[in-house]
């Protein structure tokens, strides 16, 4: 369970995030949606301690992030950032092995190699294992970065727009993989999505953010209505039902 209380964040004298109360159940996929600049990445960064908390508290299973050591946090929460730039001439398997750092501290064991093999297979990356990251396509690279977060073996996984650069097949493959991971490994996944329909089809809960505030929260089949989407994005849409799931038509 993730508990967020009274978290407010100012940047350059402007308030960009203000969440008084948000509780997210464990072992679910939670989709975070909202227009550009709503504060989604800011919230995720605060949750992963990439940004320091200015006020309030964030807890994972009663583990308070402001009083927990990085070593413990590194085994609890993993994050895929929206933009990451690092020395990227690493092979995919080296990258995944790096994500095992919280366990091997720089001296990988047979166990770590086993997890890497498992994830390479799980994310269909076996053919790219020795390819350098900067020689992959945008989508392949994105897949490798997501696999990296899973390699970290944390209960909680935060993904900021993982569908960036992914084609139809890979976007669906990733979303189904996320769902499988929840069943297989009891993960809790918070994922920022821009496509309402992916949120509707694959998420257990939707949290909508606008101008730093939570506008609505709930299961997709309750909260996705033409009115709520109009309120969130200012766009008129039709909502249709298809195999018991709500889909929005917004073209």
């Amino acid at each position: 369970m993730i508990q967020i209380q009274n978290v407010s964040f100012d940047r350059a004298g402007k308030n960009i995030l203000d969440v008084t109360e948000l509780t997210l159940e464990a072992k679910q996929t939670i989709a975070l949606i909202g227009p550009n600049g709503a504060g989604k990445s800011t919230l995720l960064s605060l949750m992963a301690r990439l940004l320091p908390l200015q006020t309030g508290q964030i807890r994972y299973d009663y583990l308070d992030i402001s009083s927990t050591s990085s070593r413990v946090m590194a085994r609890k929460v993993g994050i895929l950032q929206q933009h990451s730039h690092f020395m990227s001439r690493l092979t995919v398997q080296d990258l995944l092995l790096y994500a095992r750092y919280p366990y091997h501290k720089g001296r990988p064991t047979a166990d770590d190699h086993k997890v890497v093999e498992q994830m390479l297979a799980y994310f269909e990356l076996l053919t790219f294992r020795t390819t350098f990251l900067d020689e992959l396509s945008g989508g392949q690279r994105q897949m490798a970065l997501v696999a990296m977060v899973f390699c970290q073996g944390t209960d909680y996984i935060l993904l900021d727009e993982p569908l960036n650069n992914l084609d139809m097949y890979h976007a669906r493959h990733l979303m189904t993989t996320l769902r499988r991971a929840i069943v297989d490994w009891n993960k809790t996944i918070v994922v920022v999505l821009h496509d309402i329909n992916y949120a509707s089809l694959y998420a257990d809960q939707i949290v909508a953010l606008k101008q730093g505030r939570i506008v609505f929260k709930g299961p997709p089949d309750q909260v996705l209505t033409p009115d709520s989407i109009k309120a969130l994005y200012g766009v008129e849409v039709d909502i249709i039902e298809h195999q018991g799931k709500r889909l929005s038509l917004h073209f």
Partner: protein
Amino acid sequence: MRPFSYWLLALLSLLMLALVSLLVGAYAISLEDIFRQPDMANVMMSSRIPRTLAVLIVGSILGIVGCLSQSVMNNVFAEPTTLGTPQGIALGLLLTSVFLPEVGLVGTMLLGAGMGLLSLLVFFALLQKLTLSDPLQLPLIGLVYSAIWGAGVTFLAFEFDRMQMLAVWLNGDFATIIQGRYELLWGAFIIGLIVYWMANQFSMLGMGEALAKTLGVPYRALVVVALMMIALATSLVVATVGMISFLGLVIPNIVRQYCGDNLKHSLPWCAWMGASSLLLCDVIGRLLTHPLEVPANLVFAVFAGTVFLVMLWRGDRRAF
């Protein structure tokens, strides 16, 4: 088995080059001479062998240090020369030799390393404040930064009449290396081994602070250790033979093309390529204007400058 045969080839070629380096000099020595003429064996022991070892150690440690700098600064153009480290070290060496001459060679070298570390820490802190839109901005900032340290040290050298020493520190030359004048470099050799031993940890620095921290990497502590290694090794080189500019820039960037950014894989190759290319440059320097010598730093600069220009020409900001 393939990597193994690559290494065999690499070591063989280095051995051949070392042999050539032993036989070439102000007067040529043939293999027979060493065994027949005692004074030739003497020249071997007191001058040729120390010189060849010095080149090998300096070439490999500068390759390693350059590669490490690039991971720490998260920038492919980082290396001691583009970070102003030799100037910082020279200032430390100069101040020590003027005000604390009694500390001896090791003490002088350590104080030089201290000043080098200070200049690295300031540069690192400066880099955290800036958002570079292009990696190439780093050497430009470094140019300005080293000019500041350079101006300080030049002024002092002028005041205390040490211009000669300054020139020696900043222009690597192996002509003066004889037995008893290079042994400090074994310290650099040991630093190279330590860096390799910690390669997996140092590789994490290339992930950048944010990502490294989410993985529980003690980022700040590792940065300081890495900068200490860089400062110490560079100081040892500057104090004994003088700086070889841009070796740490060019060699790791060629190696990266094949081995990538995983230091465990790339460091040994950086060491090998640094050693063999510097040895080649040193031999060429001895043959070019025989019996006079061109300093290895100059010969290497021609090579490095050309490679650097090609890098820029290709316009590939990942370098190569």
